[in-house]
């Protein structure tokens, strides 16, 4: 293991009233001109920082949804009934959302395996799994489009709806819309990277991290859905 320790002016830990050595080291590690994320691919560190910022964006939406829902004095529309579908003459609560959840989880599964096969340098399987992921993602967006048009047809608007608190529509369109936008963007990224995998681009560079980076983004989209599913649809 190589040591890339930067020589710092040594400060005696025994200095009376001084800052403990551990804290000095912490500050030094982050402040000194050296690599913090050692042995972490730069692209991976960057996508993680992007996802961290995205976490705050989605959190802002969900917290504002909490604020609106907790402050209304009229009943909140019951998601279980709003998102029910009538299949074969029977009304099944929340069924479309459940199917969407399974589709997205499955896409996360195929993506995780694509990353694995990428690092094994198995081009065809990697690309096939990525395209399967993209297909599942596109399926998810299509079902969301169906859900949107159904709700719009039933009279849901950002400023009102037939069943209760007017804020319901604003929360629904904002949160699921932003998430759907992320899924759509993810599908484009996946297809792009899959084509590059097929063409042997990453074999030339010898670096399959691009697959993992695309994967991290995709898993994050799935992760956000876990929270939306719990807080918006089930609560």
């Amino acid at each position, binding site marked *: *293991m190589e040591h890339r320790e930067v020589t710092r002016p040594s400060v005696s830990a025994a200095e009376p009233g001084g800052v403990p050595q551990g804290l000095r080291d912490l500050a030094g590690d982050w402040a000194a001109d050296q690599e*913090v*994320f*050692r*042995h*972490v*691919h730069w692209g991976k*560190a960057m996508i*993680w920082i992007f996802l*961290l910022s995205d*976490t*705050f964006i989605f*959190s*802002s939406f969900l*917290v*504002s949804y*909490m*604020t*609106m829902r*907790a*402050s*209304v*004095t009229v009943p909140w529309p019951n998601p*279980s009934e709003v998102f029910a579908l009538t299949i074969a003459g029977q009304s099944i*609560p*929340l069924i479309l959302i459940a199917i969407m959840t*399974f589709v997205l989880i*499955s896409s*996360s*599964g195929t*993506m*995780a*395996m694509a*990353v*694995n096969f990428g*690092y*094994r*340098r*198995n*081009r*065809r399987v990697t690309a096939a799994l990525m395209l399967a992921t993209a297909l599942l993602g596109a399926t998810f967006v299509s079902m969301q489009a169906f859900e949107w048009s159904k709700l719009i047809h039933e009279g849901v608007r950002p400023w009102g709806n037939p069943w209760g608190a007017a804020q319901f529509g604003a929360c629904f369109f904002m949160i699921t819309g932003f998430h759907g936008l992320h899924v759509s963007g993810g599908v484009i990224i996946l297809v792009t990277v899959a084509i590059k995998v097929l063409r*042997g681009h990453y074999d*030339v*560079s*010898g*670096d*399959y*991290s691009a697959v*993992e980076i695309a*994967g*991290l983004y995709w*898993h994050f989209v*799935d*992760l956000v859905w*876990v*929270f939306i*599913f*719990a807080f918006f649809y*089930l*609560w």
Partner: protein
Amino acid sequence: MNHATHVPTSDAALAGGHGAPEAHGTAAEPGHGAGHTPGQTHPIGVYLKVWAYLFVLSTLSYLVDYFHVAGVMRWVLILTFMVLKAGLIVAIFMHMAWERMALVYAILVPPLALGTLIFLMWIEADYTFWTRILFLGGGS
């Protein structure tokens, strides 16, 4: 290493090849997983198992709604399944369990600040609610 001249001709020749990507250097990091190279290669079975767990957890959280579980029990179940699912995705699918401490802490600690936001907005929502009830005729 000369990247440009190394053009692969078949997948089979590459399938066994497991070189660390150049960008990382070649040294395996001691104390980093079981000597994993940064390439994150784990048995496929791990992913299939997590996939199955996620399916089960999603089904369970759907059943909470299907059987109209209500009150505190509903919230406890929903949050439990949610946290378990999120944990599995982040730890296994996103490989956080095998990353270096510096990266794990840099990503997982900042979101804790959201607790403050949630707390403040909870107070604010409560205040708005009672203002509407007491002074705005129910707010409807």
